[in-house]
């Protein structure tokens, strides 16, 4: 059926309906901050992507992190991007050299992988990171 989501805390008291004194906050209620607004998730070019594997730990990207990928952003040398490599979905640093784009794998491996050919592209550029539990 619906999304699994629990009501947390008391669903009735929202900061205004006090029993003794009228709450001075009554006209100023705003609710919790909206992270989807902060991350601009309503925009058509923003996609959430979950990280598998530890190869980007040096860049501060850990397994289980949720990356915000932007499909409208221009790729930049040295940035982290979502890459389609022969149909496989990868996240890695990208490099521009000799007039074309390459993938630069982390963890001490220096071999550049050319981003050209069938089902291979820079799919989106990583622009933000969410770590639900630190």
């Amino acid at each position, binding site marked *: *059926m*619906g*999304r699994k*989501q629990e009501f947390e805390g008391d669903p009735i008291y929202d900061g205004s309906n006090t029993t003794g004194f009228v709450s001075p906050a009554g006209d100023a209620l705003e609710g919790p901050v909206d992270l989807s607004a902060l991350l601009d998730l309503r*925009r*058509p*070019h923003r*996609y*959430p*992507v*979950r*990280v*598998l*594997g*530890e*190869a*980007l730990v040096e860049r501060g*990207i850990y*397994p289980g992190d*949720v*990356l915000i990928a932007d*499909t*409208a952003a221009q790729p930049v040398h040295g940035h982290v991007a*979502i*890459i389609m490599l022969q149909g*496989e*979905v*990868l*996240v*890695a640093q990208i490099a521009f050299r000799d007039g074309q784009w390459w*993938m630069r*794998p*982390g963890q001490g491996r220096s071999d550049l992988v050319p981003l050209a050919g069938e089902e291979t592209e820079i*799919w989106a550029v990583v622009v933000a990171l969410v770590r639900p539990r630190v």
Partner: protein
Amino acid sequence: MVVLSNNDGCAVARSSEAKLAGVRMGEPWHLARQRSEVRAAKVEWLSSNYALYGDMSRRMYEVLAARVPRVEPYSIDEMFLDLDTPRDAALLAVELRAAVRRIAKIPTCVGIGPTKTIAKLANAVAKGDPTLEGVCDLRDETRRARLYEAMPIAEVWGVGGKTAEKLAAIGVSTVARFIALPSREARRMLTVVGLRVQAELQGVSCLPLSMSPPPRKALAVTRCFGRPVTCWAEMREAGSAHAVRAGEKLRAAGLVASRMAVFLHTDPHSGDAWYSAQHAGRIEATDDARALAAEAVRMLRPLWRDGYRYMKVGVMLDDLQDKAAEPLGMFVSQDLGRSTALMTAMDRVNARYGRGMVRPLAVGLTQPWRTRAGRLTQRYTTRVEEIMAATAM
């Protein structure tokens, strides 16, 4: 690859490989998959993932709406655009196509014309001819005239298979011949629609862009079961569930219904004994889930016969009116204020926590009769637990 309709029934989308293997649009998959060509081509199938398709459709719309003055979302995968900008329309079309491809990741074709009917035709031309690189511009009258000479009339938007047959019978098989038909003839054979199609094909726009859907006159919720239903308790649940869903649609549109029709039937293709029955009648004007479910069950009960294997049940509502315009006196047996408050609260909870989070118990808890979706892909963009995963390198 084919994508199947609701309940994994019929092929509603086909990859070019599946088309080559001879899978037809709308064909029942359990029949198609048995053919040797389809088996030889190893055609894979997937269930429809409407949560994903709806979100991708939204993305496509937003990409376009940010770039042209007006967009009319015509269907989940077709939009009419107003290309009346200072920019050259053909150049703009190339850019729009590239933007949709890059941002929403959807390959598209663009057809350009002075009317919707010509734009649709141009789109079909672009789709059928890869050398055009996805854009076909039919603004030029001489180019159109050349194309119309050989274009089958059945390709034209609004001309159905039956109409095309009627026209073929009097020797009108191409668009050029159809345009040459005297308007009296066109009207006699195809009613006013025929006249409109004629005018549109000649560049006279009769169908302006509309930004909002036309007011609904009727709505239907019908579904095949995931497996045959043989007991009344399950049929009652399914009928109630469809009525409750119909109520959601009514309220979303701000309407009330004062007529309901229901039907149920067995599977005509399975070899099971055939039984089909329907009933329609007036109901007290309402948008209340509980009232609608009760009416649906009341109408279905006399149609039920033990001993059959039922495949489908449906609930249709018509005589729809604006709830705001409906005189209050029409709600005789309901407390309108309480009903509206309850339905509004239910809709809000369900909008926030997912459809069906709060529902009348009549629709059942486990719903074993529910539609199948045996091979559902992930809802990549709408469910946090199903988002795309990427391997760090």
